[in-house]
Structures are given as C-alpha cells and as structure tokens.
C-alpha cells in the first residue's frame, strides 16, 4: 500500500544502518586481532550504501523519470580498507616477524567510535521519520472527528 511507502523507505535505512553498526562492532572487536585465516592481521571493513531506484536497477532509468521518490537504500557491498597495517616492535609476540615487528590491524579505535555514533544517530533519524509518517497517517484518520 502506498500509504506505507514512507515507512518502507525508512525501514530500508534502518536495516542498512544496523548492518553498518554490526560491521563497526566487528571492527572494534577485532582491533587487536593479529591472525585471520589467510595469515594477515584483521583488515578494517567498511559498508558501501547504494540508493534503491524507483524504476529498476540501472541509474539511467531513474534519470529518465525522476518524478517519483526512490525506494530507500541498500548495502551494495562490504569492502576491506586497504590502508597498510600498523607495525609495532614486540619481539616476544608469537606473530612477530624475524625483525621483531608485529603487524596490527589498520583500525583506529577513535575513528570507529565516531562511526558508531554516526550510525546510531542515523538509525534514530530513520526511526523519527517512521514516527512522523505514522503520525501523519493518524492525523489523516482524525479528519472529521470531533474533539
């Protein structure tokens, strides 16, 4: 029903932000992980958001007919941050190389915390949108009622 279109759009935002939050949590949990299955330290992961077009997958379809709201957002991909690992001198560590350096994940904990705050606020903004959409529906139902 088109009555719930706004809610559906905001719901896609909620789902996307929640996934982003999961990815950030995973980054924070692995801030000291020096081993993964492929032998490297943990690499920071990021999410890529993509707009969901109202008319189909291709961007030009929306350019031709831009007179409709879109269908919200979706997570296009989760990619790895390819910035180099941090090196720390720690010769007693079992993962240290022959010169005594340990490769640490390329995660900045402060950066992750800021991202988490952004994701939380974005989630809350979408919830506010849903509540507004709900409120205008209830307001419409009050048309004509006395008192």
């Amino acid at each position, binding site marked *: 029903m088109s009555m719930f279109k706004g809610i559906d759009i905001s719901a896609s935002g*909620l789902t996307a932000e929640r996934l982003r939050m999961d990815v950030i949590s995973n980054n924070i949990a692995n801030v000291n992980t020096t081993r993964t299955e492929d032998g490297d330290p943990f690499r920071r992961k990021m999410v890529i958001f993509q707009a969901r077009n109202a008319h189909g997958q291709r961007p030009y379809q929306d350019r031709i007919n831009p007179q409709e709201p879109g269908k919200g957002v979706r997570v296009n991909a989760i990619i790895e941050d390819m910035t180099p690992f941090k090196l720390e001198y720690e010769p007693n560590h079992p993962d240290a190389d022959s010169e005594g350096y340990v490769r640490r994940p390329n995660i900045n904990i402060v950066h992750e915390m800021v991202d988490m705050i952004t994701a939380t606020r974005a989630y809350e903004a979408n919830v506010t949108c849903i509540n507004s959409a709900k409120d205008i529906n209830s307001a419409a139902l009050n048309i004509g009622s006395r008192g």
Partner: protein
Amino acid sequence: MKIDYTHPLHGVRSKPEKPQTNAKEQWNSFLGQLQTAITEVDQLGKESNKLTQDAVLGRVDNLHDVMIAAEKAKTAMNLTIEVRNKALEAYKEIMRMNF
C-alpha cells in the same frame, strides 16, 4: 509520465470510473472495494503476527521489522474502523430521516 501530486484522488482512482446507473450497483461496488481493503488489512495483521512469533522464538534478524509490521497493522486497522464508523454514520443518518 508526468505525475500530478496536487490531484486529490491520485492513486485512489485505479481505473477510469464508469458511470454508475443505480444505487444497487454503487452499493455492490462499494462492498467489493471494502472487501478488498479488509483482506489487505487482514494480510497485514497476519504478517505482524508471524513476525511477532518469529521474534519471540528468536528467529528474527531485525527487531525494527517486527515493530514496523505491528505499526502498519495498527494503522490499517484504525483506517478500517474509521471507514466502518463513516458507513454506520451515513446509515444512521438515513434511518433518522422523516418521510
């Protein structure tokens, strides 16, 4: 296609209206539309029920989906009640008429 958002009935009128000749036809058309709407509301309610059950059993990924489904069902139910009240009101108005 140019969409005119200012038209008050945009999206409500699904097919071009044919001129209705008598009251019975109009009544039947109204009943049919009401039936469709109620089925849709029922569908939303069932969906909400299913999601709530899934949530209780711990099988749901996104908590907000459950809440949104419940909210949709609630809004649709309120709309149904409002339509029913309007129809009843009209009926009572007619019954109060003095011939």
